[in-house]
């Protein structure tokens, strides 16, 4: 028995585990003590602690609000949600446009056309090498000085207006008619996806290609428009009343400046990732595609890009994460996202720095981990099978 125990003591594996357990216990104890001490000190210095403040009335107004109900009588928790939604919306918009621009520029960087190639290089070198905060401030002040004032707004068909305060759009009045139009839109998309799948299958089986663009226009574009007129859904139009446009919905100029700057900046990194991805695809692949009779565009889309993305996705994930984190620079131009609302105004009203900064960090951590998770799953799917 004793010998057995002794041999355990000298067993490398057992010792390694024992040391690791000890280390974890030690760190956990240290963190616990620090936390306990912190709470005690906060209490002793008369500072309010805990999360009770989330249920207090916020008391301040928020400029950008997409679809949550919020007014100065709402709670701090609701203000927190508005901040999260605004952060997510600017991040998603930025990620979408950064990807599109990045893809185009990345491909253009390898174009055989001298002018296109050089223009892409110049774009990347300029926007990658200027700090993002400066770019945000630059686009914001440019937008403010270039766009007309409220009274001289650019007017599109009396229903869409653009001025130095933002873009003002008509809004659907939510009701039965609105849901019918929404339903027809969804049906259109589902039907189109079905048709597209069938045509792909037909192409795989027989090699006969069908043009599905007319189907797309008919089902996804025309159908909802027809439904709109048939059901007679009501729109609320923005109109200039007094100082500002009232009614409808609006996207603030702060949102545009921020989303634009983030897209343009991050696109440079994505373009470089795409370029390195395309470069990594063996030249033989392109030649083989040409030998099969694929046109240049088809070869890029069907043969080169799917292989290039495999290499490009990990660095692109990093750029998506950076873009999301950079969105906190919004505070410089006054777009009301999480940092501006929550660790700005709420922090100042409530004063509980530790709780508020911790919650803010938790949100960014969650968003970042979620983006990594989704893209890692996507990456798994894109990996070469059977290797």
């Amino acid at each position, binding site marked *: 028995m004793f010998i057995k125990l002794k041999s355990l003591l000298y067993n490398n594996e057992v010792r390694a585990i024992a040391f690791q357990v000890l280390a974890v216990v030690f760190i956990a104890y240290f963190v616990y003590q*620090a*936390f306990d*001490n*912190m709470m005690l*000190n*906060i209490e*002793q*210095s*008369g*500072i*309010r602690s805990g999360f009770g403040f989330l249920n207090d009335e916020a*008391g*301040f*107004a*928020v*400029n950008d609000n997409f679809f949550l109900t919020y007014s*100065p*009588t709402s709670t701090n928790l609701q203000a927190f949600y508005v901040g999260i939604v605004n952060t997510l919306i600017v991040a998603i918009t930025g990620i979408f446009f950064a990807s599109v621009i990045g893809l185009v520029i990345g491909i253009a960087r390898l174009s055989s056309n001298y002018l296109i190639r050089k223009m892409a290089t110049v774009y990347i070198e300029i926007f990658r090498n200027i700090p993002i905060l400066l770019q945000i401030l630059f686009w914001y*002040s440019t937008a*403010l*000085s270039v766009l007309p*004032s409220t009274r001289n707004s650019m007017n599109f068909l009396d229903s869409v207006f653009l001025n*130095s*305060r933002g873009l003002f759009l008509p809004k659907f009045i939510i009701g039965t008619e609105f849901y019918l139009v929404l339903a027809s839109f969804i049906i259109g998309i589902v039907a189109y996806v079905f048709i597209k799948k069938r045509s792909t299958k037909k192409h795989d089986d027989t090699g006969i290609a069908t043009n599905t663009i007319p189907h797309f226009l008919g089902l996804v574009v025309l159908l909802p428009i027809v439904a709109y007129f048939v059901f007679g859904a009501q729109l609320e139009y923005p109109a200039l*009343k*007094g*100082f*500002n446009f*009232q009614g409808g919905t609006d996207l*603030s*100029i*702060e949102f545009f400046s921020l989303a634009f700057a983030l897209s343009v900046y991050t696109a440079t990194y994505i373009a470089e990732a795409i370029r390195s991805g395309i470069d990594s695809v063996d030249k033989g692949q392109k030649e083989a595609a040409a030998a099969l009779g694929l046109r240049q565009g088809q070869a890029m889309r069907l043969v080169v890009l799917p292989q290039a993305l495999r290499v490009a996705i990990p660095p692109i994930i990093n750029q998506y994460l950076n873009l999301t984190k950079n969105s*906190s*620079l919004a*505070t*410089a*131009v*006054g777009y*009301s996202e999480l*940092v*501006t609302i929550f*660790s*700005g*105004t709420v*922090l*100042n*009203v*409530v*004063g509980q*720095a*530790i709780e508020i*900064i911790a919650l803010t960090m938790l949100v960014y951590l969650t968003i970042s981990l979620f983006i990594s998770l989704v893209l890692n799953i996507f990456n798994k799917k894109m990996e070469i099978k059977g290797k």
Partner: protein
Amino acid sequence: MNKLLKLSAASLLVFTGFSVNADTLSDVKSQGSLSCGVSTGTPGFSNPDSSGNWSGMDVDVCRAIAAATLGDARKVKYVPLSAKERFIALQSGEIDVLSRNTTWTHTRDTSLGLNFAGVNYYDGQGFMVKKSLGVNSVKGLDGASFCIQAGTTTELNLADYFRSNNMKFKAVTYDTSAQTKGGFEAGRCDALTSDVSQLAGLRSTLKDPSSAVVLGDVISKEPLGPVVRQGDDNWFNIVKWSLNAMIEAEELGITSRTIDRTSTSPGVQRLQGKTGKLNEHLGLNKDWARNIIAQVGNYGESFERNIGMSTPIALPRGVNQLWIKGGILYSPAFR
């Protein structure tokens, strides 16, 4: 943002480690300088000049405390803070006193572990609008957009006022005072709202000051004053009575030039430190109040030098006049 994170981390460290040292006076004495939190630049209140020398009403409070405790008004280390950073900096012990146009409110006084040591300027929230709008009262601003600085009581007052008057508004919130002014100048909003004392200063720095007017309406009361941490009553007393000494000196009619003149008035003699033991319970030298008046001046001198009619800010004394002259400035008795 980075500074905010750093301060939060600092406060986290302070709170997890040792409690903030509760004897601020001996800390200040051993450091040989007072660490004073001021704004990042508010003309007339705390503003650095091109060579980095700070001046203003709030700066004078810092200087008075340094004169009282260290005998030298120049021994101040100024820490410029944004509205969002100021309380964390004080709570974590980064600064000894906060003198940064901070409104004394119930919530701040009771839930942040802080004490307001008095009022050095009675302010109120006002509005600046573009002259071209032709608006002459806040009531005419229904539906307008406002540029505001984040992290101020201004945001809350604006929402309260428009709610109680059943009016609509849009608020564009910026991080600093300079950005707020920039937004207003570029036409992002119809009006800029802030404390009246700051509006005058902001207007004077516009590219075309005559294009904007400050409305006569005042929608809130904003008593601004120095703030200290709770739990150090002696330090609280020192800050409170340093400010009171300036007000008392004006009431007694003594200035930086006349403080050392021999006087038969017992009140003046007590302030000069020639009689009485006003210094003992504060743990200061006999000449503490004398140093304040000699080096910083009385309240009226500080007012005229920084924001009075002879300065570009040109604020009238208004309610910030002595009680004996129709204002509300009133120092408790020096005896």
